[in-house]
Every structure is written in C-alpha cells, then in structure tokens.
C-alpha cells in the first residue's frame, strides 16, 4: 500500500487522470444510473472501446518514439478489406468444409496486411528519414487508395459464418474483443517496460542520437515499432470486420483524431520518450463513458466534442497545477510548453562552414 501511495505521489500525471476518470464516471453514474451503467451498458461500452482502444495503443507507440502515425485507420481499413475479401467468397468460394480454413486465413491476412503497412511506414521513416507525420500522411492516402482501387469503394461482405461471432462471444461477462484489448494492453505494457525493445522505444523517443551513439540499431528499432503498430492495427481490423461483418474503405475515419486525443490525454509526450500504457487505459475509459453518456443525454456530436476537448484541457491544466513546485516558479520553463528541445541542448545545423 505504501509503495502504491508513493507511486501515486511520484507519477502525478497518472494520479490526476485516474482521479478525474473515477470522479467523472461516478458523477455520470449518479446522473444516469442504470440507463448507462447497467451490465449490458458496461458490456456495450467495453465492446465499443475495443477497436478504438487498439488503435489508440498503436498511436501511443508511435508517439513514444517521438513520431505519430496518421495511417493507422487507413491501414486498418486496408487490412480489413483484404481479410474481408479473403472471406467474401469473391476469391475463394466459401463452402461448409473450408469455412474454418477461411476463418484462419482471414485472421492471418488481416495481421499480415497490418504488418506490411507498418513495415512500409517503418522503412520510409527509418531508411528515407521522412518525418513520421509526413510519411504516415502519405501512406494514409496510399493505403486508402489501395483499398479503394481494390474495392472501388464497395463494402466487402464476409460470408464465412461465425466470423462475426468474435464480436458476439464473451468470456463470462466480458466480451471477447474486450478481453483481447486487455491482452494487448498487457502485452504492449510488458514489452515496453520489460524488454530491450521497449526500453529502446523510450530511449529513441527521448534522444535518438544518444541511442545511436550507444550502439543500438536505431533504425531497426523504428522499423520494428511500426511493425508492432501494424500488427495491432491488424488486430483492430479483425475486431472491426467482426463487428461489421464486412469492410469498406473509410470505415472508422473519425477514430484518427480521437486516438490522438486519447493518447495526449493519457499524458504521452507528443515528442516522445514519455507515456504509460496504464494511463492510456484510464483515458480510454474516461472518453468512452463520456461519449456513451452524451448519447444517453441525446446531445449532438458537437456537444460531445466540446466535452472531450474540455476534459483534455481540464486534465492538463490540473496536472500542471499539481506538478507545479509549491514555491515560486523557477524551473527554467519550457516556454513553448515542451515543444522545443530541452534547454541546454543546441541543435546542430552544421554546414560546410562549420564542419570544416
């Protein structure tokens, strides 16, 4: 317990977010009660948070390296389209006997497509040194384009019976897809904290140059990170097509900005090196309960955006006040709010004049 309290005191960002989440959820529970927070209601929220949550983890990973991945939704779309095609009967006819095989094929196709999208992003970012925001903006359009070229925009329906059961099955009271999300959460969390690869992700985000000078294969780290993102995106695609029993280009577009919102709400530093998977869990819970409650109140989507935006600002401002040293402000402030290189460092723009 003691360790727990010192932990809370040390990671104040997390504490603020956790308390906000609990307070807001409780307040909404008092207001809406069983209308939203019935067993069915909570199950429904947990299903909804699943596909979005997977994408948010993917975005979080990109941000830890100091990058961003704008292509996640498009990549999930492409993976979903490919998997759906495999199970649509358009390429391989679906019969009684092969539907089990096609089921597996669909899963594999989704994961492999996801992996390949991640690999492509990783290569462009690591080997061509295109800034992640531009690289993934380009591939976002590219992946959408590939999906579009394949489907000409049509929905691809899944004929393999039972695939949509993924979305319907539950383990005890917990929907299967939610369990899947939890598993990914734990796996990514462990990877980040317990493996060399995870350590390098953080170190790269903090100072990629120092990591290179430490002898780490920085480019490989980046490529692997985006490949991991790709796999998670593939999983998200599986959840999506299981829920929709079909896939269409453009499905889930609005998740993109939402994942960024969730990730920064969770205290991830957009410039890398900082962010915890546990916090992301809380941020997702907070956003999902707010969103569901807004529907229950019958508010317009703009009201929902308003509340989400306010929540982000409130959490950040409170975090600032909680973290502020009690005495006068004196730490050399990061005047642009953490957006410039840490003080004392001096970006090198060596040109011929300087080097020689």
């Amino acid at each position, binding site marked *: 317990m003691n360790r727990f309290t010192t932990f809370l005191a040390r990671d104040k960002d997390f504490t603020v977010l956790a308390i906000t989440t609990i307070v807001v959820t409780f307040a909404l529970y008092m207001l809406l009660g069983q209308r939203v927070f019935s067993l069915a209601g909570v199950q429904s929220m947990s299903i909804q948070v699943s596909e979005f949550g997977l994408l948010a983890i993917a975005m979080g990973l990109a941000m830890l390296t100091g990058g961003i991945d704008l292509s996640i939704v498009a990549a999930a779309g492409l993976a979903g389209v490919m998997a759906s095609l495999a199970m649509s009967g358009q390429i391989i006819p679906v019969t009684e006997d092969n539907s089990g095989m096609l089921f597996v094929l669909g899963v594999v196709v989704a994961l492999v497509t996801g992996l390949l999208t991640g690999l492509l992003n990783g290569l462009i970012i690591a080997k061509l040194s295109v800034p992640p925001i531009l690289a993934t903006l380009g591939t976002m359009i590219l992946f959408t384009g590939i999906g579009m070229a394949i489907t000409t925009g049509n929905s691809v329906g899944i004929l393999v019976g039972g695939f949509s059961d993924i979305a319907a099955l539950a383990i005890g009271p917990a929907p299967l897809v939610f369990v899947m999300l939890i598993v990914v959460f734990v796996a990514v969390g462990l990877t980040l904290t317990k493996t060399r690869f995870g350590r390098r992700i953080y*170190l790269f985000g903090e100072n990629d140059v*120092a990591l290179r000078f430490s*002898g780490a294969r920085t480019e490989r780290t980046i490529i692997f990170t985006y490949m991991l993102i790709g796999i998670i995106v593939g999983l998200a695609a599986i959840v999506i097509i299981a829920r929709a029993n079909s896939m269409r280009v453009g499905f889930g577009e609005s998740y993109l900005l939402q994942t960024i919102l969730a990730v920064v709400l969770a205290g991830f530093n957009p410039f890398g090196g900082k962010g915890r998977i546990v916090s992301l869990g809380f941020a997702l819970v907070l956003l999902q309960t707010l969103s569901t409650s807004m529907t229950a109140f019958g508010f317009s989507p703009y009201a929902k955006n308003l509340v989400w935006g306010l929540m982000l600002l409130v959490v950040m401002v409170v975090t600032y006040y909680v973290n502020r040293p009690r005495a*006068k402000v004196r730490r050399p402030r990061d005047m642009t709010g953490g957006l410039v290189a840490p003080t004392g460092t001096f970006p090198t723009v060596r040109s011929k004049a300087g*080097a*020689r």
Partner: protein
Amino acid sequence: MPETNPAASSPLLSARGLEISFGGIQALRGVDLDIAPGEIHCLAGENGSGKSTFTKIVAGVYQADAGEIAFNGEPAHWHHPSDAVAAGIQVIYQDLSLFPHLSVAENIAVNHMMQDRSPIISRKRMRAIAKEQLERIGLDLPLDAPVGSLSMANRQLVAICRALSMDARLLFMDEPTTALTHREVSRLLEIVLDLKRRGLSIVFISHKLDEVFSIADNISVFRDGIKVGDFAAADLDEVSLSRHMTGRDVTYERYHRTQDDDRPVLEVKELAREGHYTDVTFDVRRGDILGVIGLLGSGRTEMALSLFGLNDHTGGSIVVDGEPVTIRAPWDAMRHGIALVPEDRHEQGLFGKQSVAVNATATMLERILTSVRTLSPAKEKALAQRVVDEMKVNNRDIATRVSNLSGGNQQKVVIGKWLFRDPKVFILDSPTVGIDIGSKSEIYDQIHRLAREDMAVIMISDEAEEVVANCNRILVMHDGRILRTFQEEEIRAEGFRDRLDEIISNPDDQDQSEQQEVAR
C-alpha cells in the same frame, strides 16, 4: 584564512545571504559576495557547486529564495533577465544561450534590438554592430550564416561578441573558453584585461586554473552551494586553490605505459573521408593512451566518428588485432571492441530525463536480462551500481535523473556506460570539457587504470596540458591531416608542453618548417 578585503571602494555588486533550492537540491546556501568596480573576480568550485546558479540569480534568470542583491549601491529586484540587462549586467551563459537558427549578426546584435524598443528592426544597424564586435576580437565570420552552422568555438566567440556589444558595467563570463583553443583563449584573456582597464567589472568562471590565475584579481571559492572564501589571487596558487575547492590535494599523475606487448590493437591506414580528413595513419597498442590534439576543425572528431562507424570513410583501412575490419555502424565498432565517448555530452551521450541506471546500462541491455530475456530490474540496479561505484559518481542514488547530476558526474556516467563492455579501443572525444579539476583527476585516474588493464585509449583533447599529462603518444592534427607524431620520450622532454602549444597555435608555420625539414 587569508580573507582579503575585496574592495576599498563600495562594491558594484553586493549579494547577501543568497539561498535557492531546486526541488530537493539546495544549490546555494547563504552566499555573500561583493564585486568591486573594475576588478576581475573569478569564481572557482567543483561542478554543481553553484557558480552558474549564482550568476543566473544576479542576471535575473532565477529568483532567490532568500537574500538580497544590491547593484551599484541600490537594492536590485530583478523579475526578469531584461531588468538586469537594463541595469548594465551582461552574461555569457555557460550554455551560450544563442539562437541556432538566427544569423550571426542577429545573435550578436539581439541585445541592441531588444533595447532599441523600436518595433521595426534595422538590419543595417544590426550588421554594423555585429561587424564591429567581430572585428574587435579579430574574427571573420559570415554575418548571415545561421549560428547553428558554426563550430562550437565560433559559437562561443559569437556569444562573447554579444555580451561585449553592450556597454555593460558588470560582465559575467561563465566558462567562456571551453571550446576555444590556446590562441583564442589568449586573445580573449587580453580582451578581458582590456575591459578591466576600461573600468568594467568582470566575473570570470573557469575550470582551467591557468586562465584563472592569469587574469584574476580576486577569487571566490564555492563548494556545495556555500562560498567557502574570498581570496586575493596573489595569495593563492593552483595547489592551494584546488585544495580550497575540493578539500583535498589534487594532483595529476603522469601516465607511463608499462606493457611490453607491442603488437598494435588498432591500426589505421591512410584513412580518408572526403572533405573531412585524409591520409590518417597511426596505430595504438594495449596500454597506449594516444592523445590527438589540434585546432578545431582539424578533423579529429570526424576521424573518431569514422572509427565508430558513424562517418563512413572513403579511403584507407582499419585493422583490429591484425584483422582488417569493416566498420559501417556503431555496432560493427562495438563488435570489434571499439567504444566512443562522444564530444557532445548532452546531445550524443545522455538521456537527460532518464535515471542514472537507465543511462548507465543503455549500451549493455543484454547484460541485464533474465532467463526469459526480459529486463531484470535487479540486474539493472546491480550493474548500474557497479558503474557508479567504479566511476566514483558522487551521487550514489542510481534512480536520480541524470540531468540533475553535475557535469562531471554526467561525464562519468557517459564513460561508465562503456566500462563493462570491456572495449579494446576506447576513444574519448574531449572527455573533460567543462569538468572541474577534482572530477578531471578522477576521470584521468580511471583512464589510466583502463590503459593499465590493457585497453588502448585514444583521447581527443584541445588542451596541451591534458595530453601531456595523460598520453604516452601524441598526434597533432591540422586541417584533416596528421601534422606531427610524438612518442613518449619527446613528450617527457623539458618544455614540451610549450612547444606543443606553439605548434597548435601556429600549425601553418609548422607546416612550412616541416616542409623545410623535409627539403633539407
């Protein structure tokens, strides 16, 4: 204690009881200090003893928790650095505080721009100001080049020009010479003396005691945030000053190689990199400490980076233990037992926001794995602790953020993270820049020990004194070439240090004399 009365006349600056703490760290405890008009007052003290913090309080960057400052006889309450600037205080900050993306002219004239209060800037005036200052210190730099494209030394000179451009009454110079070579330092010290003659007060901070003694009127010594005393420079010598700073006698041992295995560990043959350096040939043996010295831009760092796989060479070859090797990446270098402590500690060596433990183990993650290949916190702690112990890092708490360590201790961490990889060849690029004499001697001791334990060390340095004391072989590089090579006997010769200084300061003369020698 031989306390001197700092000044007969009333002091220009007088600080009383300054206190400040950062989080848990008490950086200054009740510091009283007077600066007389027209004196050169040096501050000395180990890394983290509070010299820069004192400077920043006087400059209005930090607000003291307690204590008062009077400037020119009047109480000074700076809320912002601009207040101090307006009162006539100029600072050359340790981190230079330049704007890498702005031009040389703008960086120099920025104070004027801020003072003019005119919303529109006059580029003509800026260039005129910059030109005047550059001429004053005898420097020719392109006025429109972004400062980020300059070498460290030129950046430092730009920062100096900026401070000189204002009619300050009190000038702080916080380690202004770290990147400068002998010649530039002498020029700067002359300017400082000249400023003094014109009535300016100067507070000069440096870890290079010879500089301190060549200009100081008075010296104040800081230790652990406490000012331990004010001394007239004449009453001190390097030994006694070091004792005041560190509380012990600091001596630099000379290094002598004792190994008798003379087979080279590393042979560099006619190594070249277009535009960086050419025809670099040398070898190092076990137990060698090879000093590489030269002016800035002489190609030393570029060469070192090539050996570490970060600057592909375009010609020549590298041989390790008799085997030709290809080194195209740091891990190639590491595989062949080559390690590098980079020049730029902050940018290239440290993960500032991470703990000492994380930094110390960053090169050896495979050493801290459990049986299932996950990171083992216990092993990590143990290994980091060993690094910290071995390198004698002051702060024993390996959970501290590394950015909170003093410069000397940070450098020990950077060196330490290679220690347990047992490199065969250890390249240290300017390992003691900005490091206090106490830590310096500890770092030297470590290097000597490593060499004695059969490592081959290559030490790049700007200071003749440093290479003479620590190296048993010296290369002088100039303009991308090896100018001279010295062996141990020559190095130990009387007056060698001055000779080396002379060579470095006038490498082009050297070129000629050498050619003459060849011609004869």
